[in-house]
């Protein structure tokens, strides 16, 4: 089994808000991230796939295909967007880094050929990142 990781960067804005919370509760839980005008990050995405090395090509996965899928499924939808208002997953879910990693996993999981998705890592800043391995619990 070999693991291969591809990176991509995208920039987006978001804010944290739960409509079931009172304004005071939203402010207490989410702090400055509750500003409804949003704020932005340069996100770094790392997608790791795993698989056996194909003896003919020497590849775990066709990197070109992985790059295309990441661009089509993630960057086209999220780069330079306001996540809360423009990305359907976040009409109902709060666009935290945790939920972003889960949403990206769900977008990629069924689109990859041959290789199996192993990990989605999303850096919100160089000092904060989330890993999702597809675990239900």
């Amino acid at each position, binding site marked *: 089994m070999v693991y291969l990781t591809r990176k991509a960067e995208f920039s987006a804005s978001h804010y944290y808000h739960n409509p079931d919370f009172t304004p005071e509760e939203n402010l207490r839980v989410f702090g400055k991230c509750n500003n409804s005008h949003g704020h932005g990050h340069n996100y770094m995405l790392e997608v790791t796939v795993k698989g056996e090395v194909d003896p003919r090509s020497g590849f775990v996965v066709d990197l070109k295909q992985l790059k295309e899928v990441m661009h089509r499924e993630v960057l086209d939808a999220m780069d330079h967007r306001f996540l809360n208002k423009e990305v359907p997953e976040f009409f109902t879910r*709060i666009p935290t880094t*945790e939920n972003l990693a*889960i949403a990206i996993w769900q977008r990629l999981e069924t689109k990859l050929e041959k290789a199996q998705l192993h990990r989605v890592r999303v850096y919100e800043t160089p000092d904060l990142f*989330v890993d*999702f391995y597809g*675990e239900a619990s």
Partner: protein
Amino acid sequence: MKAHLTRRYRFSASHRLHSEEMSADENRATYGKCNNPYGHGHNYTLEVTVSGAVDQSTGMVCNLADLDGFVEREVLSRYDLQNLNTLQEFAQQVPTTENLSVEIYEILHRGFEKAHLERVRIEETMMNSFEYSGAAEPKR
């Protein structure tokens, strides 16, 4: 859905690697420049990884303010700009980054209850790093 969240922190401290159980020659042979009697310092980077179910009312594994507050209060304020050799936990053990990783893991494991502690990783310099994920058996 279970996610892992990693946060990076920075602190600076000095230390001297020296074992009372070794002769002066053995200390020098084992620790080299790190055995300099006056000590030396590093800019450490600490990475803390916690995991748990993502709470759908907040979208979070745990509130970052809670993790940051705990690490600031219990770890960074203890170690930042200190001489590690003067601290009680290094009275009987050498303040290598291996031992520092275990100490910081234990502080978090004992006191941080908002998420499951997965791992502590410390970069002593850009060239070396140490990870500790707990021991199945008592460490000492």
